[in-house]
């Protein structure tokens, strides 16, 4: 009944001691601010990752040979060849396959106009482009026929092309050299997600057979480092992956339990791992926020106890003119809740402001990432609720004390 009046009194009280109130709310502000920040930043990172991965295609399973990627090179002499890839494509168990990118990669140096550039050479069939969602921004990619002929054609990625030739268009038709072999620049495609990942950005694509013919050391010829198997939309990834591994083991004459030969990753898994990591970070920050909220809550309890002491006469008067214990209890609970909610709102606004700033900074440093700022309504609602509940929780004891005051003793209190 007196809710509006109580809230008004609380705000009047708060404005009368702005500085003190702000210091009191600091714990709440920090606690709520960190909750909102970690939830918002987590969501922003997730959205970004998701956008990158979807651009990359999520219906792809990546399979490498452990020995090729890990430190156990001598443990296995298993590797893929183009014949294996054909066998997989023709397998009756794997009709969902829409393309297989079969990569042989090596690091090298590219020379043009007297300058040298470190590059990752990616030898692959023409399927590399469709499976990895790489589309020409200038020129074109090589055809199956050109790949089969082992043409000395090369396709650059966008950022690298711009670095060497200023613009993608200027690169088309130029001749560059890798390891002394000259290549004709056929086209430029968009960058791989995350600028190519941590292994380095400067990817250049050449036909697989060209790589074997001109760049690979003799012991590497016909070896494929890893394959990316794209499957049709709507396929159940786990089941498909099981069948794929089964077929690979059959083709490679491996025992069925020799799973550790392969390194398998599908991009859904990658997302799941990210989700788990994010959850762990969020729980950690939530724990810190909880401590901050407890400290803040104790601050609120302290200030409310002081308030109740200072306003003992007022409480006595209110009781004399008819306030029941319950009315006094509610009044002081509302005051505590208003205090923490205002703190919470400051925390929310501050936290969101910092998130926005962080996004702007990252976008300024990495313009091509184009990270989107998102509001997480759940986080905002949660933060409001938690801050209000903190006030009610920690205001309970002071409010209870106020409600138990004897009217006459309270009126006489000096």
């Amino acid at each position, binding site marked *: *009944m*007196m809710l*509006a*009046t109580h809230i008004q009194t609380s705000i*009047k009280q708060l404005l*009368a001691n702005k500085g003190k109130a702000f210091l009191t709310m600091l714990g709440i502000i920090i606690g709520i601010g960190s909750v909102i920040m970690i939830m918002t930043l987590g969501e922003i990172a997730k959205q970004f990752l998701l956008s990158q991965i979807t651009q990359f295609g999520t219906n792809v399973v990546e399979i490498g040979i452990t020995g090729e990627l890990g430190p156990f090179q001598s443990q296995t002499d298993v590797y893929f060849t183009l014949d294996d890839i054909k066998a997989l494509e023709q397998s009756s168990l794997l009709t969902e396959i829409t393309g297989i990118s079969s990569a042989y990669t090596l690091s090298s140096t590219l020379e043009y106009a007297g300058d040298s550039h470190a590059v990752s050479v990616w030898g692959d069939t023409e399927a590399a482009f469709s499976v990895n969602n790489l589309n020409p921004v200038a020129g074109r990619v090589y055809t199956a026929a050109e790949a089969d002929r082992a043409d000395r054609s090369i396709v650059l990625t966008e950022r690298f092309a711009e670095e060497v030739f200023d613009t993608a268009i200027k690169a088309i038709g130029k001749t560059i050299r890798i390891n002394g072999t000259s290549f004709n620049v056929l086209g430029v495609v968009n960058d791989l997600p995350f600028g190519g990942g941590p292994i380095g950005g400067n990817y250049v694509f050449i036909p697989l057979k060209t790589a074997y013919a001109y760049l690979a050391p003799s012991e590497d010829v016909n070896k494929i480092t890893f394959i990316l198997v794209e499957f049709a939309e709507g396929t159940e990834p786990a089941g498909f992956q099981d069948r794929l591994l089964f077929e690979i083991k059959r083709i490679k004459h491996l025992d069925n339990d020799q799973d550790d030969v392969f390194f398998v990753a599908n991009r859904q898994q990658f997302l799941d791992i990210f989700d788990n990591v994010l959850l762990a970070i969020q729980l950690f920050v939530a724990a810190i926020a909880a401590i901050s909220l407890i400290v803040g809550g104790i601050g609120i309890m302290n200030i409310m106890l002081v308030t109740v002491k200072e306003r003992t*006469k*007022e409480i*006595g*008067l*209110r*009781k*004399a*003119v*008819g*306030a*029941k*214990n*319950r*009315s006094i209890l509610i009044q002081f609970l509302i005051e505590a809740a208003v205090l923490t909610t205002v703190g919470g709102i400051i925390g929310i606004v501050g936290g969101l402001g910092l998130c926005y700033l962080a996004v702007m900074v990252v976008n300024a440093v990495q313009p091509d990432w184009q990270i989107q700022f998102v509001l997480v309504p759940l986080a905002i609602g949660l933060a409001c609720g938690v801050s209000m509940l903190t006030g009610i929780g920690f205001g309970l004891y002071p409010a209870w004390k106020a409600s138990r005051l*004897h*009217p*006459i003793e309270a*009126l006489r209190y000096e």
Partner: protein
Amino acid sequence: MPTSPRPSKTEAIIRITTLTKTYWNGAVAIPAVQGVDLTVRPGEFIALMGPSGSGKSTLMNLLAFLDAPSSGSYWFAGNNITDFSEDYLADLRNSVLGFVFQQFHLLPRTTALDNVALPLLYTGVKRKQARLRAAELLQKVGLGDRVYHRPNELSGGQQQRVSIARALVNNPMVLFCDEPTGNLDTKTSGDIMKLISQLHHEGKTIIMVTHAEEIADYAERRVQLRDGKIVQS
């Protein structure tokens, strides 16, 4: 709000018998009120008098449901209120009593209007209506032009007028005044007492604590206390 029947003109509005109040200071008993009998009829204006420490305030607090007696019985408008619950007594204070204190006890940083309206808010009256009623009462006590002043912008006499308006806002059956002029100069005291006796003439039952003869002169009946007992009534 409790439904207390308003008494007829002849019926006692307040009747107490052998009422006592003992304070305890550790193991030491302080008998502030020692077996008091008193009857108050509707419309009476009583001055509770006596030397300092004689128990005037204690007795008034008992009569006004602000404190519980140690023993004895108390009928208010025919109801034995001795074993009423705290909440019920709070409702009674709100609906049938009004208080005027020596120290005014107005809420700081709150306008005269909202100070006067305060008791109404505990009865569930809407704020707008409560303010209308409060404005009416401020007009009555001669503060129609000070409605939005805060206590620190009002003189002592004006503050006491605000507190009288607050005491009247619920149209109480009994008005309790504990040394209403104790903090005021002679001239202002006279003005306040004129206001209080005007209320008496309008039919209000008034119980006033004072130790000043010239203030007690406004009342129609004196009750003398000494050492917690009535010595003359």
